[in-house]
């Protein structure tokens, strides 16, 4: 698990799934299509990623194609960081 993946996972567990067994959240758990990330949570996550990694997101990237799993998110952040 990469650093980005780890920190995204910790953020999601802390912000949106307090009290949840951490092992339940894997790199491939569907977040948007699974109902964990609604519009509010997604925007919170985007803000977190922008602040933490100095990257900028665009509105059309906020969808299950790009942000549905921890692995997807980490891949997008890595691509943005170049």
């Amino acid at each position, binding site marked *: 698990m990469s650093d980005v993946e780890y920190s995204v996972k910790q953020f999601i567990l802390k912000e949106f799934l307090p009290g949840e067994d951490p092992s339940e959240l894997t790199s491939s758990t569907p977040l948007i299509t699974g109902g964990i990330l609604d519009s509010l949570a997604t*925007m919170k996550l985007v803000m977190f990623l922008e602040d933490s990694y100095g990257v900028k997101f665009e509105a059309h990237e906020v969808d*299950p194609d790009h942000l549905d799993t921890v692995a997807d998110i980490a891949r997008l952040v890595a691509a*943005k960081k170049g």
Partner: protein
Amino acid sequence: MTTSTAAAAATPRAEPAVPRGGIGTAALVAILVQLGLVGLVLRQFQIESAAFRRLFLLVFCGFALHALLPVRYRLPFFLLLSLAGVGLVLGPENAAWLVIIGIALIGICHLPIAYLLRVSLLVVAGGVLAAQRANWIASPWSEAIWPILGSMFMFRLIVYMYDLRHETEPVSPWRSLSYFFMLPNVCFPLFPVVDYKAFRRNYFDQDAFETYQTGVDWIARGILHLLFYRLVYYHFTLAPSEVHNVGDLLQYLVSNFLLYLRVSGLFHLVVGMLYLFGFRLPETHHLYLLASSFTDFWRRINIYWKDFMLKIFYYPAYFQLKRLGATTALILATLFVFTMTWFLHAYQWFWLRGTGLLVSQDVLFWTILGVLVVVNALHESRHGRDRTLGKRSSSWRSRLALSARTLGTFVVICILWSFWTAQSVSEWLSLWTGLGVGFSMKAVVAAIVLLGVMVIPLIAGPTMATVKKPADRRKLWRSLVATALLLLVMAGMGMDPVYSKLGATIETTMQSLRSGHLSRLDNANLERGYYENLLHVDRFNSQLWEVYMKRPTKLLDVETGPLKQYTGGFEQYELKPSFVYSNHGTSITINRWGMRDKDYERVPPPGAYRMAMLGPSSVMGWGVSDGETFEALLEDRLNREASSGNRRSYEILNFGVPGYEPPQELFNFEKALGFAPNAVIYVATGRESYRAARYVADAAREGRPIPYDFLRQAAEKAGVVRGMDEAAAEKRLAPYQKEILSGIYARIASESRQRGIVPVYVFLPQVREGLWQEETPEALQAAEGAGFVVIDLSAVYQGRPLASVRVSEYDDHPNRLGHQLVAERLYQSFKAKADAIFRDASNADRAAK
């Protein structure tokens, strides 16, 4: 690297190079058997239109072939099947127009010019089509294609262009064309806004058997929703004027909201069918009756709409506004979404119906819901909401809180919904006034629904199930057996020999569920709506809405336009003398006296037996040509075949006026007296006392003078005054319905007798299903009591499908065959009662009286 290229590089989950799609023989047979059961249930319960049931046959055969094809041929096959469906439902000419327009629009999306130019061209093309839709510019195609063309392109073009702008993968023409013409759409003008990326992303992305089985599960679930909808629609809905006590109010609120089951049922049916072709789309609704907050409700009901609004409006607005701070961005973006939701409903209405929609309740409803969602969202952004990755234990205290929140949300939504669907704000306010204490059995059922909303969260805990684990084979087969059993039960329950053994109540209920027709309330609205503004039609969740949608606007122009003239009297209007209309071989000729009939002299010729026939549009002959009305046919037959002594001729004068209610017939009767009839034939067509009271209520609250003492006194006794709300006035006059109708009948009968005129009463059934006949025994009794010679034609259409005797799907008047049947039966009845009907004083005597 720019963000776009970064995204391109990071495109996380491209489609599998070779999508999976294989299925074993046993699994395929199991799916086909279930689909066979679905077909049986659709037929047993006459689900949706006949066109849909034909389309389902195409889906069934298409699925069997599609599942066996190599995966690379499946998308082109699906497109061909979709186009075949369009042809099957719309006919070759209309289908060709629809496909040509559609391809032109899709072509514009892909022109090799700048993106903004393409968008501008689409706006121009949309503007031209809108002008045609509004009939400002003539179109060479039938009006029938508009709702379908609208539902295919009005939202999907927006999504498609949005995704094209950011598309990183090559576009497949098969996929693009399939996206717009997708198979079940041609039968469903109310179609979910399918997201293009979701349509592309999840195509055969998991085990085909699991995908197909989910499709069948959802189709079965959709049918169940539709049957529950029918139960509510036919048996539980009330008019605002029928809400007299707290129980009625509860029944009204709950049943009114549950009418939404139709939309959720249809969406399940639609998406279930798409699953059969490998499109594994998200759920369209998720336990929306169990939402525990307004944000939760917004997330669970019509999920595709919510996703569309987030993608096109919310996120772009949020990103633009986030420099103002997260809270401000959230508030403004959410309010923007609700404003656009209101606007897009009006936009949708325009494409489907061809008219504008600006109703105060719409604005207020979306404003209130928007504010509630903003408040809820702010609360959630600070305090979070309950989520879980699986089943998590929760305390009784938290479950109680969840239960209370769920009940509270349900009640508020029911109230808001009643406001949205009310015909006016004042009508909605009348619901809450003058409520007595009382609780009918139906209100108890509504209370049980509330109880369920309260108890389920207590048992189930957090209801927003989140992540679904992939089903294993054993679970899949279990789900298959459960769905097959459900379908079997539904098919069995729909069989006459089964439900007829379950007692009279169940038999009657099942019979009502076995056909799609308008409820008694919508029938009343439909009758009334002929002469009213279309905006009063219940919006977005009503079958009545669809009836209006199918009705050609030109027909309405004739109905409401030059055919009648306003008189300013109690009767309000009459047929315009000497009006002539001709269209597509149908002619309507009004004579110089304002009758849809031949030109008669005011004084009958010597030896003629003259009858004046009073009644509404079915007597006037709406939907058939001159000379084809049962009045004209009966007159011809009497003159041709009757051999009653010394009579030389028979005349029947048609005083039928579309939309006339019983009180207006008093005016018509007086007019008829001026033509010295030997007999007056009053034709009644159902719900007489309700319609009579409603007309008096309208006259009183609108301050129109009521020239008949007994009617005026009834309004005064009931306390109906000028300016009173419609529902409140009807509610007050409800106890006087019988008195009003009996008074009308008594006046016509006694004044006829005094003049030596024979009063004849004919009961003519309506050409539609429903509960319109519920007042018939009372009306017949009242007519008999008043002294009419009564002829009951209730069974005149018996043994014939209604579709064979009515004008069309959108017009419930008897057609030519219907009129022929009525004329034949009337002739026989007249012969049987000749002694009572054909006796008279001389014309001269009657004229003197």
